[in-house]
């Protein structure tokens, strides 16, 4: 039983009914009504809003949000370019796959958070630190998925390009790249949440500007309302970014639909 792509799951259930939001809303309303007065740990939802408004007025919220989103966007773009290209090259060459296999296998297995201290040690707290780390983390799922699907390209399609006397470039453009798109997207689907988490982690660990460091500062000062407020902001960012990605994925997949003949093995 192959792992089903989540978009398939979403389709088969239809979009979750909006009525399903009721329990969550109810919970928030009860929280607000009960309002555990005096508890510094569970500020009511209205206090979250006030906390966020304070951060907003001081301008810290927007600048942190900007810093985080810039890192995320630039890192995903770079990871797509590097991972896609390297994946195609490695997937096309059997020798490269054999030679790099164990090394890539190790890099894939390495839990992403440990890259953060390594990069901090080698690069120091420089401006580009965040970007370098997030690219290093996000590139693997994209690279490995693209490579394995390119490698699994069926021989039949190779014969098609011979029959049609396609040149190297035309083969690449008309056969190899379109067949790699679905697997590339599966990789990207893994890379997006990972990139969000690691961006926040770097900010939390290094105190470089961003939502991650902002939330840690609020926590250290016991501004619990701000912490909850920022949690909602991070949740919204995650929701919007993942949603945007699903839409982009759907558009690309309708242009280059996955075909059983060339996505075996992904």
């Amino acid at each position, binding site marked *: *039983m192959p*792992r*089903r792509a*989540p978009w398939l*799951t979403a389709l*088969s*259930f239809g979009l*979750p*009914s909006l*009525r*399903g*939001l*009721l329990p*969550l809303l109810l919970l928030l309303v009860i929280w607000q009504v009960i309002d555990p007065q005096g508890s510094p*740990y569970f500020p009511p939802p209205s206090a979250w809003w006030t906390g966020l408004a304070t951060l907003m007025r001081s301008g810290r919220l927007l600048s942190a949000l900007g810093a985080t989103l810039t890192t995320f966007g630039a890192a995903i773009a770079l990871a797509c370019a590097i991972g896609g290209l390297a994946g195609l090259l490695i997937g096309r060459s059997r*020798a490269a*796959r*054999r*030679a*790099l*296999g*164990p*090394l890539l*296998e190790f890099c*894939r*297995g*390495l*839990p*992403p*958070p*440990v890259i*953060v*201290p*390594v990069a901090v*040690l*080698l690069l120091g707290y420089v401006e580009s630190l965040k970007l370098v780390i997030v690219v290093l983390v996000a590139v693997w799922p994209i690279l*490995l*998925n693209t*490579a*394995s699907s390119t490698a699994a390209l069926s021989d039949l399609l190779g014969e098609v390009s011979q029959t049609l006397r396609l040149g190297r470039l035309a083969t690449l453009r008309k056969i190899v790249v379109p067949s790699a798109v679905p697997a590339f997207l599966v*990789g990207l689907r893994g890379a997006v*949440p990972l990139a*969000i*988490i690691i961006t*926040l*982690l770097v900010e*939390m*660990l290094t105190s470089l500007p961003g939502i*991650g460091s902002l939330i840690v500062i609020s*926590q250290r000062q016991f501004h619990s309302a701000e*912490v*909850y407020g*920022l*949690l909602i902001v*991070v949740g919204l960012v*995650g*929701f919007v*970014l*993942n949603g945007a990605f699903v839409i982009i994925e759907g558009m690309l997949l309708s242009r280059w639909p996955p075909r059983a003949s060339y996505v075996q093995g*992904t």
Partner: protein
Amino acid sequence: MRTDSINIPGTVTLLAVAAAWEASVRTGLVTFEYLPAPSAIVVAFAEIVRSGELLANTAHTLRSIMIGWVLACLIGGVLGLVFGLSAFARRYFLASLEVLRPLPAIAFLPVALLLFNFSLTTELVVMVYASIWPMFINAMGGISNVAARLHDVSLTLKLSPMQTLVKVLLPAAAPAILVGARLCLGTTLVMAIIAEMIGNPHGLGYAVVSALQAIQPEQMFAYVLFIGFLAIALNGCLMLAARRLLPAYGREAANHI
């Protein structure tokens, strides 16, 4: 990308990378101030093994991974079952979970710190929150995708709902649930390291960060490489177990990247 029994070019590449690394550090070719040579990392590794530090940290991390994994599999599995079986649950509760799912678990760390301070609870809360999702999604998908014909079979055999669940639905959904459990273990490991770096000053994650802060690059690299091997070993164990449990599953799962 499976490697065959002995991959000679692959091994040579690994050795070549290590040799080039060693040589460039020795000759001062690279300019990183704190990059230790592989030989120095090996020495540091022997040291943390001898002092028992590595063992203690590994024990802590493995213990929290096991607790977190079992909790996440149970919670995610039960939720997945309920939502896979009941259209009512999907209609009235699924959207609430779907809103919570993309919330990056790491953002819960400060909240957990606020509530539970630097403790194992903080670590577990973050780990479990992050890892119930793969299990939930796979169990729900697995159960609700059981072929209609199998439902007819259980009707024909007049199986009770409980018998249907145990004899028909769970076996049919087992491959999906196993995939969920494997993904879940990976997430648990990653979140354990993250939580130890920020939330709970124990274990391998904390060891890496404290070696960084003490500027002991050799020790830090020893820990980082060890964590890499540990992750691969854990995943390997699970693949082996999955292949034992479901022989047909092994070959397909091997192809997963």
